[in-house]
């Protein structure tokens, strides 16, 4: 038994496009330990999206093994994967992906709806989760009444509400201005200090500087994997920034 949350071995993904076969991942081997904050980098077409989809159990590898918390999920059926996504994985997307006609708290309750959590406990845990990301008093707001940063916080609260083993963030600051981006990173760093395992895709090197480990993909291969000796402190950066002119 290791301390690995994620262990992938010779992970391969081939897309069959009829005449041609595209190899999106060609044999990736990697481990992510509990409590790491990993930046996944690479140009588009490098295979990082495919890697994240497999990591998030949205897709299955063509070959190779994927152990999530020592459990082999690479051969699981569709519904088993749904259950893994529900309980062990939290997703944060670039476009927030909240349901628009639902209030913040209803959005956060959604994963528990599919996890058979009793109704009374759902609301309690959703409020707790929203409070943890600093939105305790905005639970009744709808996404269109919230700023981009606040929407992303709701999405993070939703991702965390079922206490997943790993938080997967796909360009979480891509739609945000620089100050709000640092705010979100500050939140990730806080969660990380509290023990969360986070894997974040980004193509911006200065965003990756807030992570403790950086991995690079190129042409479907893992070309670089190193720990970041000087992790930037988002809280300190935020303090050094000029105060915001406008907050929605």
């Amino acid at each position, binding site marked *: 038994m290791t301390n690995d949350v994620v262990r992938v071995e010779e992970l391969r993904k081939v897309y069959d496009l009829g005449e041609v076969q595209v190899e999106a991942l060609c044999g990736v081997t990697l481990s992510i330990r509990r409590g790491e904050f990993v930046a996944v980098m690479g140009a588009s077409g490098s295979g990082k999206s495919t890697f994240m*989809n497999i990591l*998030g159990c*949205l*897709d299955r590898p063509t070959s190779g093994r994927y152990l999530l918390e020592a459990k082999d999920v690479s051969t699981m059926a*569709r*519904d088993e994967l*749904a*259950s893994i*996504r*529900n*309980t062990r994985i939290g*997703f944060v*997307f670039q476009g927030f*992906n*909240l*349901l628009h*006609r*639902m209030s913040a708290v209803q959005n956060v309750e*959604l*994963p528990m*709806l*599919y*996890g*058979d959590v009793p*109704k009374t406990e759902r609301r309690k845990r959703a409020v707790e989760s929203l409070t943890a990301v600093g939105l305790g008093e905005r639970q009744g707001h709808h996404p269109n009444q919230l700023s981009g940063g606040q929407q992303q916080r709701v999405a993070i609260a*939703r991702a965390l509400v*079922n206490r997943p083993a790993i938080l997967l963030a796909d360009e979480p600051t891509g739609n945000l201005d620089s100050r709000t981006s640092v705010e979100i990173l500050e939140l990730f760093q806080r969660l990380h200090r509290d023990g969360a395992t986070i894997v974040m895709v980004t193509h911006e090197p200065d965003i990756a500087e807030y992570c403790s480990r950086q991995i690079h993909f190129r042409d479907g291969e893992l070309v670089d994997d190193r720990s970041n000796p000087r992790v930037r402190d988002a809280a300190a950066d935020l303090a050094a920034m000029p105060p915001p002119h406008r907050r929605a």
Partner: protein
Amino acid sequence: MTLADVLGTALWSLSRSRTRTGLTMLGIIIGVAAVVSVVSLGQGAIANTEADISAMGINLITVSPGAKMSGGFRTTGVTTLVPDDALAIRSECPAVANVSEGVKTTAQAIYQQKNASTTVEGGSDEYPLVRGWRLSSGGFFGPEQVRQAAKVCVIGELIREKLFGSDEPIGRILRVNRVPLEVIGVFAPKGQTSSGQDQDDVVVVPWTTGLRRIIGAKHLNSVLLSARSAEQVPKAVEQVTSLLERRHRIPPGGENDFSCQTQREVAEAQEAATLLMMTLVSVVALIALFVGGVGVMNIMLVSVLERTREIGIRMAIGARSRAVMWQFLGETVVLTSLGGLIGAALGIGVAHLIPVAIGWPTRVTAAPVVVSFLFSAAVGLFFGLYPAYQASKMDPIEALRYE
């Protein structure tokens, strides 16, 4: 996901787009309302027919000339029934209580400047007994007046109203086909029969007067008679039949040139016709309901496509295929059931409105309400299945990328 979650999610989704939900439900609402109101109308007509028979007396037997044919049609213009037949029935059939020679024509009834087209019926002095009709004023003609072909008449309430208004009709003279008739009585109002004939729109004269003075014929249109009791009806029919067979010299096994119809048979024929009509219209309404279901499926397919991203999000955070399936199926079933409920309420409302608005009787029973509601729910289940299946088999990655 529990059932409450499925229903809650469905109601939430439907309330997001009220206009679309309303329009989609409309087909179901109209279908169910049509079924409920049509069946109520049919039930009302049948109940009314039943009431008619008891009002007219289940003892009533009508002897008509010409053979009885299937489906209640009868050849008309047959001249085989004559006044002597009625006389013979009177003297030779012990199960028969009262007999009235029947003569019938339509004519103009004229009083001063007013006139009305009406049914003129001839009868014997036993006519009110046979039909069970009562008078509201005046009296009826007696056997002597029948023998003399007296120029007297008893009028229905509608004729009294049309021709005399607020005037006292008794003792006045009205003319039918230029024959002056003294009004000696007025029937108590009876209303319409279930076949839509107004029983108050009538002028009754002695049958002799009708035949000789008004029509100018020698044969009867019918003989109305009543059995001594309800139990005696079959015996009376038997006696009359064998008597007339003998009198008309019908060979054994030959086809009779007359027919006996009891009130029960008349009612049954009428009920059968009503039932057939009701069934036909209900089938059309059910087809409308089905077409409404196709509309629902269409909208749900569009809805599934529109909400691809929502489906992707739900799948990413852990919704299983079945949960997505249940979500959309639940939505369709809730939609059509709600439509069914509204339609049933509307149908019951219409069923209560029809008697007030156009005077047709209705009777609301539980069966059509329950059946059409269940049918609409079943329509939702059936037509929701395909869109829900489409939603459930989406690929979460592609669904999330959908713009």
